[in-house]
């Protein structure tokens, strides 16, 4: 995955450390439009990378460029945040708010102009097929519905870049299938970066994939390219094939380590 002109987000040589632990070690990645999956085990640095892309965290070294601008400086970062949507891994909400109120509140946080807030909130809810639940309290939603509202709040500001951290965790199989379709549809509108440790998610949703292992990027390319890695021997895109490709990389990393 090169730093082509179409990249919406670019990380170059970014390093992040938590005390003595290195979460990301000189990672360079670029994220074009479409859905890019960040695949890796727990602790691989996926959430840390997403936090860099969301501007919630600054790298110890290296640079992050978003929408063609370096993500530095208070005012520039504030301006960039207008065009970024985020769904954190543990997505909390205010249970007393209705779905519409909560999405409007998210629009307010993203500085959507007051005159457009309600319209944008309704549009976002329509996109995630939650419009008919607009008046339901957030506290009364199921896990799947809550995730959909999470997507709605992430896209309420019509972002150019949407960051989803483990969006399918905790969903039942039926909900997961519906959710993948939603993310796929989202990828037609903007660049989506989705972290996951589920090979199935990558196989069904992502156009491109990046495998992170121990804080370093071990693979970047299309899903088909991951599936076609020698150890997998697979030509078809499937969860099993993605998994095989991933295990090949993990094995190679372990052998190298």
């Amino acid at each position: 995955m090169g730093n082509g002109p179409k990249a919406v987000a670019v990380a170059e040589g970014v390093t992040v450390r938590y005390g003595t632990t290195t979460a990301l070690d000189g990672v360079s990645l670029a994220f074009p439009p479409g859905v890019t999956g960040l695949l890796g085990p727990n602790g691989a640095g996926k959430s840390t990378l997403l936090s860099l892309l969301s501007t919630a965290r600054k790298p110890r070294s290296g640079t992050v460029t978003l929408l063609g601008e370096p993500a530095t400086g208070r005012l520039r970062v504030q301006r960039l945040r207008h065009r970024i949507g985020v769904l954190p891994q543990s997505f909390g909400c205010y249970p007393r708010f209705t779905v519409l109120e909560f999405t409007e509140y998210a629009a307010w946080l993203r500085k959507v102009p007051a005159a457009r807030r309600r319209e944008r909130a309704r549009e976002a809810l329509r996109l995630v097929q939650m419009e008919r639940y607009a008046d339901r309290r957030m506290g009364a939603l199921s896990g799947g519905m809550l995730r959909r509202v999470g997507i709605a709040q992430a896209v309420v500001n019509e972002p150019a870049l949407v960051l989803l951290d483990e969006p399918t965790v905790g969903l039942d199989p039926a909900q997961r299938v519906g959710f993948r379709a939603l993310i796929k549809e989202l990828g037609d509108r903007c660049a989506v970066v989705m972290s996951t440790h589920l090979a199935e998610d990558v196989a069904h949703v992502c156009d491109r994939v990046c495998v992170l292992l121990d804080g370093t990027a071990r693979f970047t390319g299309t899903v088909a390219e991951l599936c076609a890695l020698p150890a997998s021997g697979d030509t078809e895109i499937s969860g099993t094939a993605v998994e095989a490709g991933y295990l090949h990389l993990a094995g190679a990393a372990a052998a190298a380590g």
Partner: protein
Amino acid sequence: MRVLLTEMRRGEAKWAAALMAAVGVYYFTAESPADSDWIGWWPQTSLKVQLFAVIVMGSVMSAAAAWGAGRSFRHRTRPWSDTAARGGWSQALLFWLAAWLWSLTAYALFVAVAFSRTAAVSDVTEPAWTPLLLGASMMALQIAAGVALGSALPSRAVAPFAGVFWYGLFVAVAFVPGTPLDKLFPAIDEFWSSEFAPNTTRMLIAATWCLTAALALTALPALRRHAALTPRPVPLAALALVALTAGSTLVSLRTPVPDSYWAVRKDQPAHALCATSGTTELCLWPEDRHLLPEARAAVKTVDTKLGSLTGLNRAFYASGLKRPPGATAELPVMSPAESEATLTDALFSAALPQPEPANCAPHPLRETGGYPDTFLFEAAVRTRAGAPSEYYGEKFGHALERVTRAPHAQRDAWLDRAAERIRACRPVPELPR
């Protein structure tokens, strides 16, 4: 605007405000006008509302605001709101404004109830607004402190802490008056009769201090958040500077004792309101017009009872009114609900002559068992008028009888001479045989 309304509708502050509204309405309606020290006096009414709002409602609303602001920790929305384009100060201001608007709604209800009670008694309509403005501003500061605590600390204990902190602060200030805290965090528990008016300048300075400090306080938690969420330094510094200036001005202002820090003496009225009967006159502040019927009746009673006695004060002026030279007396009006009986009693007391030298030492009277002769004089005047008087024992009673059982002409002549001597700081004449 809609987000603010949502915050007001869904936040916890509305329940706290509703509870306070119920408690406050009960508090302001339960008191009887006959026993009240505020129903009928506009400035005192405003002080009462300010005091309740700041000490009780402000403390509770501060706790509610702290609880509301802590929801990002309770509901784990902090990772999400940390990536917002809107700054942390704006996020805190939304909580603050929602809680403050609910407080102001309840406050407006208190004002309406308390004012309606005073309006039903008073014959003038002169509401004092600056104490109310100060109360509203002080609540803004209390709520801001709650928001700052709730936004900065993840513990659920910050909510009760905020409430207890404010209540404790006011209790402490009440026990140790005259400290800078007293001026910076005013909960004005004072008695202002009609001679006092709010010190508008000081109250406006205090309101400025409270509001600017409140706004600056809501910005503090955002200073600890992501750089993109931190407040702009220029507006924050400007607010802090105004707050500091206003606060230090308040602390540096002094008041000559025994006047109040928050009140000023009113200018003399163009025409005092006087009730006259015979040679007795009582003048009141125009604001106490509603007391005129009671004053007329009391003056008539006193004039009749004192009759032809000379040497006593027969012209009475409510505290603060300028008195002409001569045998006049100050009459403290202690309640807007003075009755004919209490006024009559106060007039009898005020009628007694006072020694001209301020440092006049009392003259103990052997016949009374050592009590000062002025005690006997007062008891004799009151007994003559048929008014109740103090009992100082048997010996005192015998001495009193020597005066009161004397023939009327002799008794009155003794009282006249005694009055002159008391005024001149000399012992009363020998008791009638």
